[in-house]
Structure formats: C-alpha cells, structure tokens
C-alpha cells in the first residue's frame, strides 16, 4: 500500500530534480510517440536535442537558440512574478502582439526618417503596448473582481484580430504590391533590431532578457515587493495581516508581465521577424507558461528552461525537415513536458510511504 504523506517543508532536492526528471520522462514518452508515428525514436530525440547544439550545422542553429530563447525568457520572467503570487496572466500572447504593434507603429510612423532616437522610442512604445493590454485585466480585477484568467485570455483573440486588421489595413506596406503585411523593418536602419555582433543572434531582446532575469532575481530576493509577492503566494492570510496591498500587487505583477511581453513582441517584430504580418505570433506567449513552470518560477531556472524550450523549437524544425516529423508533434512534446512536471512535483511536497499506516 502506497500512501502520500505531506512533507513539513517542501523538499529542496526534489524541487531541483523534478524538472530534470520531467525532461527525461518527456523524452521517453516523446520517443514512444515518435515511434508510433513511424520514426526512429532515438534518431528523433537526437535530432531535437543534439543536432542544434553539436551537429554538422550547429554554427547556424546556435544563434537561433538566442533568437528563440529571448522572447520565451522575457515573457516567462514576467509571468512567473504573477504566478508566484497566484495572479494568473495567461494572455501574454496578446500582450506580445500589442507590444509589437505599438512598437512597429512608432517605427513605421517615422519612416523614412533616420535618427538614433527612433529605436529607443519604439522600445518604450512596445513596453507601453504590452502594459496597456495587461492593465485591462488588472484594472477589471482590482475594480470589479473580474477573473483575470478569462479576461487576459479573451484579449488574446481580440489582439489577434487587431493584428490582422493592422496587417491588412493601416500598417500595410504601401509599396507592397497589395500583399498583406507592413514594410520590413529590417530594411529600415533606424528601426532595425540588428544582431549586436553580426551573426551571433545576440540582439537587444537577448540583452533585455538577461537584464530581466537579474532584475527579477534581485526583486524576489532583495526587495520588499518581491517578498510581498512570495508571501501572498505562500500564505495569503499572513500577507493580509502583514499589510500587503493586493490591488497594488495585482497592478504590479500584471503590469510588469505586460511590459516584458510587449518588449518581447517589439524585439521580435523589429528584428528576426521584421514585419507586422497576420501570422506574426507563433505562440511564444503560451509556451512561456511552460517555461515559467519548468524553471520553477525562479529567474535562473527560467533562463535554463527558456534555453531548453528554444532547443525543442529548433530541433523540432530540423526534425520536420530531416525526418518529416509533423510540426504539431513538437507542440505535443512541449505539452507533455508540463504534464510530467506537474505530476512529479508531487514528490516535492509529499513523501511516498510504503507499508501499512502506523498508529499515531
């Protein structure tokens, strides 16, 4: 007979080990899935996890790791602050889109004027766009008690429609021969978020992601606001007695995650993507939720988890090209990862005990 006993303290060792165990379990389950799809499981796993880092064309894929990892880390850091306090912003995808639209809008408004201040202005506008979009659920929650999960999620669909409207209407390239999509910001020097070292994949978004990691680490460990976030998540009643202002906490957590998601969108639209198009968003806002949990809501953990998730994106692309693995298989793979993580998390808070229950 196996029973669960609650640990007096969450186990630190298991807390660190569960992400690794979850990744291993996902590899096994993913391998089975690939086998069912008629692919060699070992070859598929090797392609996804080994090829981008050490394979023949690794020099091409390694920079991609930064390009794909940066938005994931940037968004996940913001989400983790709220998740820690029990504030669930799951509409980062929408904030990401709005950040990109606001930022690109500012850039396009200046076209073809060249000046040093255009890109900084775009960054500010991008963060502002994400912030505004996140403030809607935040305001509605603090003012009316509306559920932030549902509102932030609904706003993703609204943002997607808004994106389509912009790509087909206001922001459409006037010299684009009628094709949807804006001017390519990569060809507009003042607005182009170029690699800082050519070919390294290291653009301003990567720098911002690293700054965000450090910022979040300091905030959570050395600052009163961070302490309040952790307190609210772990002991809501104690937080109330300690005088934590829930309204300000909600505004702060949602606002910060909105800004970071908006920035991620801006760096993407002005860099790797280059233009506002209908299919601009590729689900980073949702994958970042997995990244945040996989990183144990800890800034450094998120940095590592973001790297791993970027790896599965790139590896998935390679597997798609080389092994004809369907692109949705990698989405399933990422979803499974979260499953296993949540399941193995049991061992952090509970102890398995075997044998008959003893009489107390």
């Amino acid at each position, binding site marked *: 007979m196996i029973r669960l006993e609650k640990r007096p303290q969450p186990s630190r060792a298991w807390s660190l080990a569960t992400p690794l165990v979850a990744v291993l379990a996902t590899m096994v389950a993913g391998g089975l899935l690939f086998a069912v799809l008629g692919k060699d499981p070992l070859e598929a796993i090797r392609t996804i996890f080994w090829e981008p880092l050490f394979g023949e064309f690794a020099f091409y894929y390694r920079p991609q790791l930064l390009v794909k990892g940066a938005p994931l880390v940037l968004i996940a850091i913001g989400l983790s602050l709220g998740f820690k306090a029990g504030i669930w912003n799951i509409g980062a995808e929408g904030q990401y889109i709005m950040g990109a639209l606001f930022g690109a809008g500012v850039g396009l408004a200046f076209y073809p004027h060249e000046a040093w201040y255009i890109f900084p202005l775009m960054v500010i506008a991008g963060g502002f766009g994400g912030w505004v979009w996140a403030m809607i659920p935040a305001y*509605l929650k603090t003012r009316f008690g509306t559920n932030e999960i*549902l509102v932030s999620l*609904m706003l993703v669909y609204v943002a997607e429609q808004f994106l389509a409207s912009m790509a087909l209407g206001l922001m459409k390239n006037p010299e684009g021969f009628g094709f949807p999509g804006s001017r390519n910001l990569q060809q507009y020097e003042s607005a182009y978020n170029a690699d800082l070292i050519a070919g390294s994949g290291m653009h301003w978004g990567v720098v911002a992601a690293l700054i965000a990691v450090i910022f979040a680490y300091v905030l959570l460990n050395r600052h009163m606001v961070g302490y309040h976030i952790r307190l609210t998540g772990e002991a809501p009643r104690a937080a109330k007695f300690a005088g934590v202002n829930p309204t300000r906490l909600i505004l702060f957590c949602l606002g910060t995650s909105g800004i970071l998601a908006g920035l991620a969108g801006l760096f993407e639209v002005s860099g790797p993507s280059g233009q506002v198009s209908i299919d601009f968003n590729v689900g980073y806002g949702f994958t970042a939720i997995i990244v945040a949990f996989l990183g144990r809501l800890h800034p450094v953990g998120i940095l590592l988890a973001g790297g791993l998730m970027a790896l599965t994106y790139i590896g998935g692309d390679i597997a798609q090209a080389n092994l004809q693995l369907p692109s949705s298989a990698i*989405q399933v793979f990422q979803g499974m990862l979260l499953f296993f993580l949540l399941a193995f998390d049991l061992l952090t808070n509970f102890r398995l005990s075997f044998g008959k229950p003893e009489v107390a």
Partner: protein
Amino acid sequence: MDLSAINPILLIASLMVAATPLLFAAIGELVVEKAGVLNLGVEGMMIIGAIAGFATAVESGSPLLGFVAAAVAGAVLSVLFAILTQFAQANQVASGLSLTLFGLGFSALLGQNYVGIKPPQMEKLDIPLLSDLPVVGPILFGHDVMLYVAIVLIAAVWAVIKFTRAGLVLRAVGENHDAAHALGYKVVKIRILAILFGGACAGLGGAYISLIRVPQWTEGMTAGIGWIALALVVFASWKPWRVLLGAYLFGGVTVVQLNLQAAGVAIPVEYLAMSPYLITILVLVILSADKSSAPAALGRNFHASR
C-alpha cells in the same frame, strides 16, 4: 450593405446551432465546478473531442458513432487532469492549462490527414406536420438530434443537482470538502466522476463544432469557445438554466456578427470578429460583482491527511 437579406427565422435557427457547442462544454464544466474543481482544460478537451469525433465519423460513416468517440476522447483526456489534481495534488490552474496546450498540439497531430474532408452529415429532425409549420417549424423542430440532447442534458443536470441525493453530495463536496470527507463521502472519487463528466461533455461540444456547425476539420478550430464556456459558467452563477440563456446570448452575438460580415456592413470584418470576445469580457465584468454563488471550495485541492 443590405440588412434585409438577413432572415430572422434562419438567424434564430442558426443561433441555436452556434450555441450548442457552448451548451455542452459549459454544462459539463458547471458540474465540475459544482464539485469544487476548476478545470481550465475545456478548450483542450473540446478540440480533442472535435478531431476524435470527426475522424470516427469519417472512418465509420456514422456521425452518431463520432459523438460517442468524442465523449470518450474528452473523458480520457480529463483523466490526465484528474490524475494531476486529485492524486498528484498539482495546481488546478496549471494542470488545466497543460491540458489545453497538450490538447491543441495533439489534435493537430491526429488531424493532419483529415484536413479538407467533408464528414458524413447528420440527419435533421423531420417530424411530419410539426417541422413544416411556418416560423416555429424551422426554429423548434428542424435541427439535428444532438441539439436537443444538449437541452435535455441541461434539464437533467438541473434536476439532479436540485432534487437528488447525488446532487446534494456533489454540492457538499464543492462547498466544503473537509466537512464532506468527515461525513464519509469519498471526495476524491466524486470529484473524479465530475471531471470525467465534464470531459465527456466538452468532447461532445467539440464534435458538434467539427461535425455539424462548421462541418470540417481545421487546426485550432475551437477558437476560444472552451474559454467562453468557462466564462459562461460564471455568467450563469453556476445555475444550469442560466447556462442555456447565456449560451443562446453568445450564440446570438456570433451569428449576428457573421451575418453582418456577410451583409457587408461598414465595420471591418476583424472588429466584428472581436465582438464575441469583447462581449464575454463585458458580461464577466457586470456579473463578477456577485461572487456569493460560487462553490466555496472551488479550485482548492483536497488531501486527506489521515
């Protein structure tokens, strides 16, 4: 723009069709939430139901068999949620999200060979005399069977919750799981049953989209209907009949905006397409002031320490 092209009778009839997926998903989730469990995986279970139902109907040629398969598929996926939240004590919000993310990916994987196929059609009800009545005929007696099943389901859930012992136990578990446990009710078992029911209902809702409402298979075709169903439960203050009202309201908004798009109103298509989501938010805001009817133990995990 030609608004006279919109036929009010057809509008109401198609409104009922548009509302039915929501009805299925929301009534299932209502039971789950009554048991004190918040399953945010509705969207994932719906889309799995959509592809399972579609594939089964195409392969077997029977839409009814498709619906059965969809219910089973939705319930199977919800088992994962039940394992995570009831045994592994995982956070319900995170577990529900994982279900949705996984479901969207997995359905796309399953459905790659079914894009662009037409499913077998479900027969419409044709009662001599009644179905031929003007106005009332097409609105009340001219639909497929599943539409009526959804309404019957609402009535059944209402009756069970209000009048039976099982309903009372379900509510007790949702209001105070410690007290229910102390009284000797199997909290975990009851919750798992509720989760399975919710999964099956969401699956049916998904299949209704892919088999009847659209009818074809495209990736991510549920397009947030699962999330609107979650909002609908709040809108309904956890009362079954209000789910019906709410679903028809949202169905109405969807159908009217589609009709306006077709009629070529001066508002751009994208802004019309936003409207169901915006109205959901608006309704949530209006109704969120009153939280008193929410099950007290909603979203809290139960672990019998002894």
